[in-house]
């Protein structure tokens, strides 16, 4: 700043007082007709198709709603470097997301985007699409309760990395504060549904549009039940000595897994205890419609899957931490201090050691 003081001074003296112009961003926010958090639309033209055909149909329906300049932003070429550009931070702090933000879309365009997300995210209550919608509500809530315009549905992004088609590779990438969704399809098959980030503030139940929202409490309850289902000896073995204030495999920490797993091994647990692990895993895996292949794989690998924790088993105290670490599956959950609100809030991520970004 002082440097520009000198420049300003010289300019004022030598050029007879011409003022410096600042590079103010003159973008105006068009809020008049933009409701940034509408419900998904029913796309009648796609209602007869199923599976990958329906996903392609809904992708195309959304794309035809876009202007050519919007399409150029949303439809991208598949690269692993763009696939890795996700974050749990608000975009105002991260600033690297690719794709088209809801804030620059019309309400109808957002409805088409959401119709696609609803199809690929599945329909369980408080999971899948329902969870994603509630997480948008949570960010709207934050925006209105002290967070300001850096928060809210307008700051969520959707992108196609590669063109949705029955052959070739494409990823449907969607995310914003506390959310990352990444479905990668190769030749019409969902081969990777990760990295999948879920976090929320406020964590406690809140009212939005006349409904109660608490979409991640099921994850917390299932992970906590998995821990409290252990005997006291098992719990001692499962406890990690270190403290975790956040995740270790968060954004831009790809393939950041311990070489040697810690904690209690699934093979040493009873079938009831193993079921509790599987129930916890499902609260993440069932956030995609085509969950079965992952559930089968993780069930098969359960005996070689470790669970470990730090802090307390309640998972609502600052620095409470739990992890499921298998040959493929990696689920991590961290309870941390509130940022906008008081009280704690969770961050969590589901990764797959083999198929993150579709294995690319």
């Amino acid at each position, binding site marked *: 700043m002082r440097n520009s003081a*000198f420049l300003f*001074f010289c300019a004022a003296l030598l050029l007879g007082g011409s003022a410096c112009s600042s590079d103010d961003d003159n973008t105006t926010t068009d809020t008049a007709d933009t409701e940034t958090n509408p419900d998904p639309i029913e796309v009648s033209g796609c209602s007869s198709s199923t599976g990958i055909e329906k996903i392609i149909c809904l992708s195309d329906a959304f794309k035809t709603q876009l202007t050519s300049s919007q399409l150029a932003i949303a439809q991208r070429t598949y690269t692993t470097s763009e696939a890795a550009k996700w974050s749990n931070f608000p975009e105002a702090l991260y600033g690297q997301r690719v794709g088209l933000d809801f804030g620059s879309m019309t309400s109808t365009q957002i409805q088409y985007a959401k119709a696609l997300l609803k199809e690929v995210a599945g329909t369980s209550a408080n999971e899948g699409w329902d969870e994603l919608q509630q997480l948008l509500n949570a960010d709207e809530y934050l925006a209105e309760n002290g967070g300001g315009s850096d928060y809210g549905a307008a700051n969520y992004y959707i992108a196609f990395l590669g063109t949705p088609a029955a052959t070739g590779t494409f990823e449907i990438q969607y995310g914003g504060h506390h959310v990352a969704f990444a479905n990668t399809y190769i030749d019409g098959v969902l081969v990777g549904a990760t990295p999948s980030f879920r976090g929320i503030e406020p964590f406690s139940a809140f009212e939005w549009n006349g409904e109660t929202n608490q979409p991640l409490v099921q994850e917390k309850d299932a992970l906590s039940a998995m821990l409290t289902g252990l005997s006291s000896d098992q719990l001692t073995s499962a406890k990690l000595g270190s*403290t*975790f204030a956040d995740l*270790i495999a968060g954004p831009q920490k790809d393939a950041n897994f311990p070489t040697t797993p810690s904690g209690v091994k699934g093979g040493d647990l009873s079938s009831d205890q193993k079921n509790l692990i599987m129930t916890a895993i499902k609260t993440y895996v069932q956030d995609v419609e085509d969950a079965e292949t992952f559930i089968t794989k993780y069930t098969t690998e359960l005996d070689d899957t470790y669970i470990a924790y730090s802090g307390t088993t309640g998972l609502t105290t600052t*620095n409470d931490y739990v992890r499921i670490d298998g040959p493929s599956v990696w689920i991590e959950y961290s309870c*941390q201090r509130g*940022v906008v609100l008081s009280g704690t809030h969770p961050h969590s991520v589901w990764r797959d050691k083999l198929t993150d970004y579709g294995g690319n």
Partner: protein
Amino acid sequence: MGQIKLTTVVISKGILMATMFVLCLNAVAHPMPNSVVSLSVLEESISGEVKIPLLELESAIGRKASELNTDFFREYFTTHIQAVSDNQTWRTEIESLSPVTDTSPFVGEYQEVVVHFRLTPPDARQLRHITFKYDAVIHQVVTHRALVFVQYDWSNGLQDESESEPLGVIGLDVPSGKIFPLDVHLEEGSWINGVKGMFLLGMKHIREGLDHILFLLTLLLIAPLTIEKSKWSGYQGFRYTLTRFLKISLAFTLGHSITLLAGSLNWIDFRVQYVEVLIAVSILVSAVNCVKPIFFKKEIFIAGGFGLIHGLAFSISLSHLELGLGSKLLSIVGFNLGIEAMQFIIMACFLPVLLISKWKAYPAVRTAFAVFTIILSMAWIAERIATKENFITTYFNSML
């Protein structure tokens, strides 16, 4: 071969910078930022400062840290801040522990602990080759990271606190579960680099010091003029202008060189605030004189006298340097030459402007400039007395 090596160094440095940038970003974005370690390479030891978010420190020790100045914390940091060279452990001294409040755009205000430490190698020749074994907080809170910078290294020309260089990041290596120490290898450096760095710092000081420039320019504005009936006359010719121009400049240089030397060597003690106020007063006085002569023929003394004050301000940049007498004297010479060089460049820019004093409009231009300077200098005086921005300085800063 040498070139290839150089490129590799540059690229890896670029990557390191980018990584540190991302980490700094994360430091901001994460609810609790990382620790920041700043090292200063001195002649026989390394002094350091680390800023640690209080909540992270409390997570690491598993309890509240209400009282910092205790044997527990001195021992804690002595254990967790270590340096090793050739299998010999350096001496670690904890010099101070204090709380500060910092702000981040994400979490707003938060508490930090500032630890000042000194690392002394058994042999001063080991000073630049260190295995830095730092793991405060990280030994327990494995998601925490420490960003390590070298902030000051005289003989490598690194003397400006705002230009610290990243050395690396210390944190848990997740695959191995280990916290690896940071190997630091600093270039040997030389006194030439030291003087060069000080020279550049001196230039920067004037370039960014609007108050010094304003003072000098208001004095020089009347160099082409003489007094007629208690008012400023018209242009008195090139030779006359040049002579006065050089005399005023020389007097200012002489004045500030004397106090720069005295202040840098800590021969005199003064309150920075008073000097800052006096500098603003000096600008006011010379601006008033620019409108109406109040000390004609004495500009040289004014330039010299107030030069003494400005020199004290310059010396603040040097007085805290922990250097031997030889290096310190070299620093003063380098810094002062930098100041003169920048001053010379500005004056060379400005001299042609004085020739417009031939114009009829010159009195109006001169008066307008002086009035602007009077208003600004009075606002500065108020700001520096109150140690608080006022609406004029706020407005002025916002225009820059």
